[in-house]
């Protein structure tokens, strides 16, 4: 129980970000955090878009026109990546928690898949959007 006592004493932890060097799974993990934060900040925009898309045919058309601007599209593609990365990295965590993935090799291979699939889907959907 000594361990637990010490654990509680040193929590919550504060991390020295600039000192940390990461393996591949570490990048998936930090990007999962970054993408989660982006999605949270984007929530009012996403809700506003849902609102406008459903309210009336006029607001729907206005929204479609607005989303057609190049800069807006870039932002959308950024959010799309954030979502896709968060989604697949999230599924990876769920798989790990359910013991569907094990060991270092499983962690590495799945990290590679998460990065690759979310980037590839972002490109495919981004090209379609453009």
């Amino acid at each position: 129980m000594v361990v637990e006592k010490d654990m509680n004493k040193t929590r919550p932890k504060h991390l020295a970000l600039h000192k940390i060097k990461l393996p591949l799974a570490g990048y998936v993990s930090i990007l999962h955090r970054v993408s989660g934060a982006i999605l949270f900040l984007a929530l009012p925009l996403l809700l506003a878009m849902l609102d406008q898309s459903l309210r009336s045919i006029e607001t729907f058309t206005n929204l479609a026109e607005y989303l057609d601007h190049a800069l807006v599209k870039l932002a959308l593609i950024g959010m799309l990546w954030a979502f896709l990365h968060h989604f697949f990295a999230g599924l990876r965590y769920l798989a790990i928690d359910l013991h569907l993935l094990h060991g270092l090799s499983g962690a590495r291979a799945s990290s590679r898949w998460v990065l690759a699939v979310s980037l590839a889907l972002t490109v495919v959907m981004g090209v379609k959007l453009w």
Partner: protein
Amino acid sequence: MVNRIVTGAHYGLRDWLAQRVTAAVMAVYVSAVAGWALLQPALGYDVWTELFSGNMMRSFSLLFLLSLFYHAWIGVRDIVMDYVKPASVRLLIHVSVILALILYVIWAVQILWGL
């Protein structure tokens, strides 16, 4: 090993579980809507509003959004606890996030039921 029970006192395990359950709910909803979108020959205003016209879809959409907000709360709280040290700033951010999320809940109901 420490014997901790999820439904017992608040060990943090409860939030951990909630974050996973809400993640699973969102994953199912998003996959279903994405699958639906892929099956549509064209995505216009008519099919889009048709999708959200029934109470069933509205309810599941609200369930999705409530899961999302709860999930986001746990996630943002974890992030803030990791990087924000002063208790006062932390409290301020926590309260702002909670209030924003409560507003989003009200907004979500208004959007879905067209108030």
